[in-house]
């Protein structure tokens, strides 16, 4: 290899051996060789050898030394492509891809046609989505090795990704013409053809795509893809009659694919509901065991026809006892007419099943054999779920209790009862029922997870962890194991529970853990850049790239990010005191009784803290052991994985700049979750606190584009106007900024003052509590003297027209006093009123009442345990006797 600092033959041979050792991961040998070269006083400072020594050290996990030697080597030989390449490899193993790209570029300066460096560079470019750069590199590789298949594929791919379909297709077309012999059943060739077809379809050249597909059909082994694509193309090209038999055969292949039915109907050009139902009827006959042709007509039918198909569907489900029957029809409830029909039918079943064991009076009169006894339970369950959906808690409980009395051991019933309480606002009662259900089948992972989730809703994190531990790996703390398995629903629910409890640091920790999972998923792409190209699974590869591009669009990320942003905003509004000052509460001014209370509280807290820290210490030891074993395992598989900083709750909640941290979570949402208005409302809250007027404006405009009548948007506009006025008062704005703001505010509110705007808003939306709430909030915000009026505006709203969530929102605002200032008496009165309206909801109940209830429960539990112990004792002694007699018998 060319070098500016060539080694003599002996050392050169050693150096080549060193490279070989690195490649074969014989790092210790490699170090020895490097030492041999460097021990020669003439080559002590040989750059490439030093760099390779560093890279070898990195392979052994000695990261810091690695950087030292690689940098030293590079300094000694800045014009060596090997040194730059090595530095790039090191950066890459450290996941510093930007830096690595720079290094590779430097390496290419000294050796511009090095294939290996170009290939490595292309991998990083695609990982970083530098699509233009990727195209450049791929073209370079193509010109260097036009005779290799891989060069063509990569070259075409690079054009496809920048959506230059013509060029991508041209390349593949030219390539396929220069291929001579195709073996039969060549999977790679087949995938390549389908990939080219995908490009044609994406470029909207449908006729060409169809011709291509027909021409190459015999060579394509993925027959299913051919059929699906062909059928779709026929429909799009208005040759529906040719698509009909294709989708008929596809349905025969898989009668449970909803998409096939849709396509089939499109091919038949059926739109009239009755005709569609008739079409489904034919499939029902043909595939009597399939669910799709029975369920799908419910979506399109209406009126009396709906009643007929729904009747059939429900009877069948109830007779067989299909547990998720209600879930299957839940979406139909969005249409109130359908919900009513379903309710009528179910009530009719319930009545007749109770009376005669039939679904209807007609059945009874006709002497049809009676339905199975279980049908009544399932019907009662269905009704309970139905009324729960309608938020009619009393009736839901009535039916679920009937069902439980009938069959107390059916787990689904207990889950539903828990869910009813959850929806009625009592997460504690809800979890009690779920725990009961869980205890009935401890081997069922579904009910186990559900129970954990309900516990988290009741803010019982450690209990939830304990429950989950039944299914996590032994010897590791459940929390760590769940994190390792990227169990995001659990972590997000934990974060929300901690948020409710005001344990901000813990909450943030969970949010960051979720965010790291997403980072890891993006990271995991890397291996596929080479793998997919080689395996020629190009359609799947492009799908993967596109998925990764929008990965953080996923609801899991959204939930966690929203929680994190809210917590960071809270921490900005009310920063935590440093740990030392927390203890010093103003004791002197307290009356003796209060002081006593406080002391006992402190004692309790201290005890608890001691216990917790002991547990934590234990857990820490466990964790360290685990970490160690994991590291050892890692050493073997992936020595390059960089160590992430450990997430520490205390540090997270005492960050210097919570808003910047919030923005880190916000950015992906702004990019990928534009269609969700919460994104822009959250963005506004952050920028409002940073007093960035233009960005506030941006958030408002984006939110308006999603939903101009969203209630919270109004308060954003008012607060924006207020900030604007306040900022101008302090110092005049930059002319350009002023110009932009003037134009935009004019569009936004015209010539009205914020007061006028707010009055209009309140008058216009007097029938919606959520709007009135924002109006009242702004009323107080604009003029503190109007506090009483503002509070009256929300508290006088007719409670019977409000949902539980709305009432909770208003009540918590009053209770916490951060919207209307301190207003304890109003809050208490409102709480009382809400309690009467929502009797099950926990937030509206008195603390004393709840505590009494809790103690009662504890006592009952204790009693039960004692009884159980006594029982066990008796059982134990009797079984001992039995075993004694058995051994005695055996002995004799």
């Amino acid at each position, binding site marked *: *290899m060319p070098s500016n600092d060539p080694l003599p033959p002996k050392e050169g041979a050693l150096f*080549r*051996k060193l*490279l*070989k*050792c690195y*490649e*074969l991961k*014989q790092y*210790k*040998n490699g170090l*020895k060789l490097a030492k041999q070269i460097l021990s020669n006083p003439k080559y002590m400072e040989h750059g490439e050898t030093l760099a390779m020594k560093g890279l070898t050290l990195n392979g052994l996990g000695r990261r810091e030394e690695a950087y030292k030697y690689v940098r030293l080597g590079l300094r000694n030989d800045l014009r060596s492509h090997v040194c730059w*390449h090595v530095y790039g*490899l090191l950066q*890459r*193993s450290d996941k510093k891809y930007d830096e690595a790209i720079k290094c590779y570029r430097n390496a290419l300066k000294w050796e511009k046609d090095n294939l*290996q460096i170009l290939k*490595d560079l292309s991998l990083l470019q695609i990982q970083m989505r530098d699509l233009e750069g990727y195209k450049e590199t791929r*073209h370079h590789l*193509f*010109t260097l090795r*036009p*005779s*290799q*298949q*891989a060069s*063509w594929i990569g*070259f075409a791919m690079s054009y496809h990704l920048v959506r230059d379909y013509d*060029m991508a297709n041209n390349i593949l077309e*030219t390539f396929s*013409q*220069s*291929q*001579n012999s195709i073996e039969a059943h060549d999977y790679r060739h087949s995938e390549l053809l389908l990939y080219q077809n995908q490009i044609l379809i994406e470029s909207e050249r449908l006729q060409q795509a169809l011709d291509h597909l027909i021409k190459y059909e015999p060579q394509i082994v993925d027959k299913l893809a051919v059929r699906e694509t062909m059928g779709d193309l026929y429909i799009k090209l208005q040759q529906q009659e040719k698509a009909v038999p294709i989708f008929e055969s596809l349905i025969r292949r898989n009668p449970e694919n909803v998409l096939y039915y849709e396509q089939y109907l499109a091919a038949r050009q059926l739109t009239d509901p009755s005709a569609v139902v008739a079409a489904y009827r034919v499939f029902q006959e043909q595939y009597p065991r399939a669910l799709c042709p029975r369920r799908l007509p419910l979506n399109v039918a209406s009126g009396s026809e709906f009643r007929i198909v729904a009747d059939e569907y429900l009877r069948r489900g109830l007779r067989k006892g299909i547990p998720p029957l209600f879930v299957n029809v839940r979406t139909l409830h969005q249409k109130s007419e359908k919900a009513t029909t379903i309710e009528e039918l179910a009530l009719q079943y319930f009545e007749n099943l109770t009376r005669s064991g039939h679904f209807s009076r007609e059945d009874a009169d006709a002497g049809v054999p009676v339905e199975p006894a279980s049908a009544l339970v399932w019907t009662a369950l269905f009704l309970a779920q139905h009324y729960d959906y309608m938020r009619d808690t009393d009736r839901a409980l009535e039916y679920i209790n009937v069902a439980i009395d009938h069959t107390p051991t059916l787990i689904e019933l207990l889950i539903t009862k828990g869910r009813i309480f959850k929806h009625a606002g009592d997460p504690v009662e809800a979890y009690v029922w779920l725990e009961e259900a869980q205890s009935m089948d401890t081997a069922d992972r579904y009910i186990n997870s559900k129970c954990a989730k309900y516990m988290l809703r009741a803010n019982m994190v450690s209990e939830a962890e304990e429950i989950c531990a039944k299914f996590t790996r032994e010897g590791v703390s459940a929390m760590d194991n769940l994190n390792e398995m990227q169990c995001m629903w659990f972590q997000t629910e934990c974060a929300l529970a901690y948020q409710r409890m005001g344990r901000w640091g813990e909450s943030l920790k969970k949010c960051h853990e979720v965010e790291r999972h997403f980072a890891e998923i993006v990271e995991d792409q*890397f*291996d596929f*850049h*080479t*793998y997919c190209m*080689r*395996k*020629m699974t190009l359609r799947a590869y492009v799908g993967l790239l596109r998925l990764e591009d929008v990965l953080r669009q996923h609801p899991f990320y959204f939930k966690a990010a929203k929680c994190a942003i809210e917590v960071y905003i809270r921490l900005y509004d009310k920063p935590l005191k440093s740990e030392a000052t927390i203890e010093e509460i103003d004791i002197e001014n307290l009356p003796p009784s209060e002081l006593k209370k406080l002391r006992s509280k402190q004692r309790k807290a201290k005890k608890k803290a001691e216990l917790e820290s002991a547990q934590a210490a234990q857990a820490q030891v466990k964790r360290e052991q685990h970490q160690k074993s994991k590291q050892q395992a890692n050493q073997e*598989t*992936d*020595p*390059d994985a960089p160590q992430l900083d450990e997430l520490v709750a205390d540090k997270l909640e005492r960050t210097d700049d919570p808003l910047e941290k919030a*923005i880190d979570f916000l950015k992906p949402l702004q990019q990928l979750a534009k269609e969700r208005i919460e994104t822009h409302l959250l963005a506004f809250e952050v920028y409002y606190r940073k007093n*960035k*007027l*233009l*960005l506030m*404006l*941006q958030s408002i*405009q984006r939110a308006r584009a999603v939903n101009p009548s969203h209630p919270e948007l109004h308060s954003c506009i008012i607060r924006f106007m207020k900030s604007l006025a306040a900022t101008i008062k302090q110092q005049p704005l*930059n002319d*350009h*900024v002023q*110009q*932009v703001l003037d*134009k935009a505010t004019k569009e936004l509110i015209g010539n009205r003052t914020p007061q006028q705007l707010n009055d209009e808003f309140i008058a216009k939306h007097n029938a919606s509590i959520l709007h009135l709430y924002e109006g009242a909030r702004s009323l107080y915000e604009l003029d503190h003297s109007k506090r009483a009026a503002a509070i009256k505006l929300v508290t006088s709203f007719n409670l019977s027209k409000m949902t539980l969530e709305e009432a909770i929102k208003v009540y918590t605002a009053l209770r916490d006093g951060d919207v209307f200032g301190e207003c304890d008496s109003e809050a208490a009165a409102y709480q009382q009123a809400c309690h009467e309206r929502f009797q099950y909801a926990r937030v509206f109940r008195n603390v004393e009442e709840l505590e009494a209830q809790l103690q009662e429960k504890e006592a009952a539990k204790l009693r039960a345990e004692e009884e159980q112990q006594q029982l066990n004792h008796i059982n134990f002694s009797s079984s001992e006797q039995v075993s004694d007699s058995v051994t005695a018998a055996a002995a004799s």
Partner: protein
Amino acid sequence: MADAEHEVNGTEVEDDEQDNSQKKSDVKRHDGGAADLERVTDYAEEKEISAANISSAVEQFGNQRNKENELRVAKEKELQKVQVKKEDIELIMNELLVSKAQAEKVLREQSGDVVAALEAIISN
């Protein structure tokens, strides 16, 4: 340490043999995962295709690329011609919390009109 060295010496003989059989050593392999995957599927890479048509195709695609590059360079040149003020860039960066590169790009695209640039980013 002595043990380790002993071990090293023990395996060196083998290495020499391997080395002789394969002189080509410029190729470097990296990351565990990717390398392992590659090893399993080390197949198509060296598969050659027939030489017919290739040279003309290479030339044709090369020309295409040159055209693209020319277009891009011309566009960039056009953008570079635009006069932008440093203070305008800083204003955009500060008000909208964007990177310098992005601020400058948008400002150039809006022919240096800072109000238009601000509006473009806001309404984006």
